[in-house]
């Protein structure tokens, strides 16, 4: 299954996929100062939350490319004929998507933190939160990608499906920025992320199977 994961990682980085996510993430992060105003104190206070919201929106970007093309090109058919379980395929896709999207995003968060004038301590909390939360986000993206695969206008539907389900990640991710009560939020963020990672492959596998009929 390493071959399957590597193939998806390569596809994630190929064609500027990761660069697009990073660019979109930074663009959203840059938009907030324009909207809120250039007051450094205000920006520093909301900055962590801005990074989380931007990460969520950026995670939505590649959703349509995760499963749809494989369904269309018959790759999933060929895998299934070979007896590969679709849940396993989905699990590989979650791992591959995380590898292709989380590290660039976490690097870009450093730049965003500079743009928003975040303190080092806040940045550290953002990065730890992203490290815990992005696996859940990747799992959610793959499950959503499988659900909308083959739909016309899938990307619009993907947003409607994925963003509400990602709200717990956003709440606990932003909650963990609080230096006093953040520890509990980290644990809850981890719990949400684990639930998503554990459940998404099965949801995605079932969705792919339904899409193939």
């Amino acid at each position, binding site marked *: 299954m390493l*071959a399957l994961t590597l193939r998806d990682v390569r596809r994630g980085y*190929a*064609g500027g996929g990761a660069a697009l996510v990073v660019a979109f993430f930074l663009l959203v992060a840059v938009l907030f100062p324009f909207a809120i105003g250039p007051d450094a104190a205000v920006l520093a206070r909301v900055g962590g939350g801005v990074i989380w919201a931007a990460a969520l929106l950026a995670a939505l970007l590649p959703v349509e490319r995760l499963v749809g093309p494989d369904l269309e*090109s*018959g790759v999933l058919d*060929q895998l299934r*004929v070979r007896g590969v379980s679709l849940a396993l395929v989905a699990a590989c896709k979650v791992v591959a998507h995380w590898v292709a999207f989380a590290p660039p995003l976490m690097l870009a968060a450093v730049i965003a933190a500079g743009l928003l004038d975040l303190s080092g301590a806040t940045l550290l909390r953002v990065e730890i939160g992203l490290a815990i939360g992005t696996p859940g986000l990747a799992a959610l993206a793959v499950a959503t990608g499988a659900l909308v695969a083959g739909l016309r206008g899938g990307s619009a539907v993907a947003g409607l499906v994925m963003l509400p389900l990602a709200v717990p990640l956003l709440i606990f991710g932003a909650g963990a920025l609080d230096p006093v009560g953040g520890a509990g939020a980290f644990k809850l963020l981890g719990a949400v992320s684990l639930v998503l990672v554990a459940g998404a492959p099965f949801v995605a596998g079932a969705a792919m199977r339904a899409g*193939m*009929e």
Partner: protein
Amino acid sequence: MSLAFRRVACDRGGRRLFDDVSFALAAGEAAVVAGPNGVGKSSLIRIAAGLLPPAEGEVTATERIALLAEAAALDAERTVREGLAFWAALDGADGVTVAQALDAVGLAALAGVPVRMLSTGQRRRVAMARVVASGAPIWLLDEPGNGLDSASVGRLEALIARHRDGGGIVLAATHLPLAIPGAQTIVLSGEEAA
């Protein structure tokens, strides 16, 4: 080794495409599914491949299956060799087998070319090479002759004959005439299609 359909029926979109299809293929045997467009030839192949559950009846395949479907299932930006190597790794085939299979479909010279540069017929032949390289005893071919020139059709017929000589089973759905000596013909004639 066998591939058998027992009173298989297929529903698509709430409509019965065909029912009561029964046949059995043993080692070295072949069958051709014939019939007009939309009668369910591709659905029959997908049912045989286990990709589509039959509405009624049962399908038994005792051995590994190789499927040639309408979609090529090859990444457009990778080369022919890399694309086939990905599937060969899953099938447990080595590089030599892949090279031989490419040679058998007459595409050895294009091994280093990205898949997106291939023509429709060439892509089809690469997909056929994957079937050959898989080493699976049961071949399910959905319109294997589509987009092929006459020389390639000849190669395809030779490949099918060689596979059957080696004890393989071939089930092909085609609306083009394909010379498969001694093949059973499965004529689908849906009630509504007539």
